[in-house]
């Protein structure tokens, strides 16, 4: 019953191969023919699903709404890795745990760094630690759709290496998606352009939006650094309140993780309005508005524009 259901959705070639496999081995066809791929976090998982289509079965290590910064591997994760034919990470220092986990699991196959070739930005250190070398790269490159075009091409190339038969499909899927990314980018530019340039300022609790800021000319001010664990001083909070009032910012956003209490209270003090969650580091679950990369970006842009209209 299940097999017939699956077959109706599959390309003809795949069906024939599956039928042959079924006849020869007597094994369930749909499990035998998909390529097991592991992606480090939810946004990459979505991209791999798009490029791989029905030829791949994607597992993500860090799921929707989860924080990749504090990920702790379980034995099951090592098992998943070992069973995979391809492992895809973001790179740029986003998953410092990935190298260790891959080594520990004994995985010997191919790995793809999705951000390979992206023009990397450095983390902006807003607090003014002078004399400090700004060596740390900003890993959140997916916040610019043009970088994601690079991601999906890298993913397509990686998939083609381990599954040469599907190379044409992967190529076609990737290029189709790049078109969607271009549409997204153009749409976002139009949306942001509706806000006067001097009013494109928001406050958010996470400085994950460096690439977005550079692409669309929006200024993101953060009350805390990218490390969500540091506790701010009373002086920093006071300065931020004064800054909000001085620059007349009314758009304040909390992304989908971290401690929201401080920023919620702070924005109230300063007379700003708290916007809906932005999705920075992870997709949402299916019932929330950021379940795929494209949905996530559209949601973020819509919310940012709505917030900045109050500035």
């Amino acid at each position, binding site marked *: 019953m299940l097999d017939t259901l699956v077959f109706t959705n599959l390309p003809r070639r795949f069906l024939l191969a599956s039928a042959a496999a079924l006849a020869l081995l007597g094994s369930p066809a749909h499990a035998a023919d998909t390529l097991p791929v592991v992606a480090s976090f939810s946004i990459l998982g979505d991209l791999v699903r798009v490029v791989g289509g029905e030829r791949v079965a994607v597992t993500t290590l860090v799921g929707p709404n989860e*924080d990749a910064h504090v990920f702790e591997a379980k034995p099951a994760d090592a098992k998943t890795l070992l069973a995979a034919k391809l492992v895809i990470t973001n790179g740029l220092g986003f998953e410092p745990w990935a190298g260790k986990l891959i080594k520990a699991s004994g995985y010997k196959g191919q790995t793809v760094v999705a951000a390979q070739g992206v023009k990397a930005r450095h983390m902006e250190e807003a607090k003014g630690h002078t004399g400090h070398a700004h060596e740390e790269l900003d890993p959140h490159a997916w916040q610019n759709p043009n970088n994601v075009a690079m991601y999906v091409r890298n993913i397509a190339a990686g998939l083609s290496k381990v599954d040469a038969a599907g190379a044409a499909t992967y190529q076609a899927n990737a290029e189709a998606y790049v078109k969607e990314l271009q549409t997204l980018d153009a749409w976002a530019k139009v949306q942001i352009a509706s806000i006067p340039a001097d009013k494109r300022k928001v406050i958010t609790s996470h400085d994950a939006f460096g690439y977005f800021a550079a692409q669309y000319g929006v200024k993101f001010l953060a009350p805390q650094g990218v490390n969500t664990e540091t506790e701010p*001083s009373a002086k920093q909070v006071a300065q931020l309140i004064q800054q909000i009032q001085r620059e007349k910012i009314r758009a304040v956003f909390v992304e989908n993780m971290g401690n929201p209490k*401080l920023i919620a209270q*702070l924005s109230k003090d300063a007379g700003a309005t708290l916007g809906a969650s932005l999705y920075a580091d992870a997709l949402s679950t299916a019932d929330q508005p950021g379940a795929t990369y494209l949905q996530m970006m559209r949601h973020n842009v819509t919310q940012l524009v709505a917030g900045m209209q109050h500035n």
Partner: protein
Amino acid sequence: MDILLDPVWDALFSPFAEFAFMRRALVATLALSLSAAPLGVFLTLRRMSLLGDALSHAVLPGVAVGFMVSGLSLTAMALGGVLAGLLVAAVAGAVTRFTTLKEDASLAAIYLVALALGVTLIARHGTQLDLLHILFGSALGVDHAGLLLVASVATASVLALALMYRGLVLETFDPVFLGAHRGGVPAWVWQQGFLMLVVLNLVAGFQTLGTLMAVGLMMLPAVSARLWHDTLPAQLLNASAQAALAGMAGLLLSYHCDTPSGPTIIGCAGALYATSLLLAPGGWLPRHWARPHRVA
């Protein structure tokens, strides 16, 4: 006149006059000083100084269940935390009552089991979110609801402590006497009532001000107050006064010197403790001087 007073005003009062978050932090800290610090004195008397730390871990299973039932809802997670804390304290108290184990030992056992359960629940549910980080507050992020919570708990605690005072003192110092005194309120009522107060104060403190602040304001002033006085009422008052002083000084330092507020407040309480260790009647110097000097 103004030349003299302006710097004083700027240093001590203008941060509070200018910023609402400073006022709320101060009021929450003062409320906690009134109720938590006296409870801390009783805890040190009962040799349970480390209860606060244990409890900050023991609330985890309740928080996890709250999260599993209604997702990322602060109310549900807070309620779960209170219930888990009360349950852990009640079980620890009951174990002390019915076995030969002392309160600290039974608490150590039950809190470790609770922590393990909490970590397992969260892992099984498959979330990587740090639930306690989300639930626990910070001194600078006290909101209206948090302030109301701390103030209500402080009011209830002070009233309850006044009602329970005699029984609690007897139960703490001379449980045998209280046990022999038939017909009155049984001793376990005092013990369990006291533990409930402690749990309420700590959990309210965790959620509004964070773990370090809640435990620190409860224990540090209490420990150093014991160095100053022999009588219990004086120790209770002294503990509250030290906690309030540390809270105000810490907030001002955090504002002027750009340091994280929670650790700064507890650092001030620590400085008061160090001073007490040296100068208080029960501290090192007075005892050193008071020692009879024998000549041959």
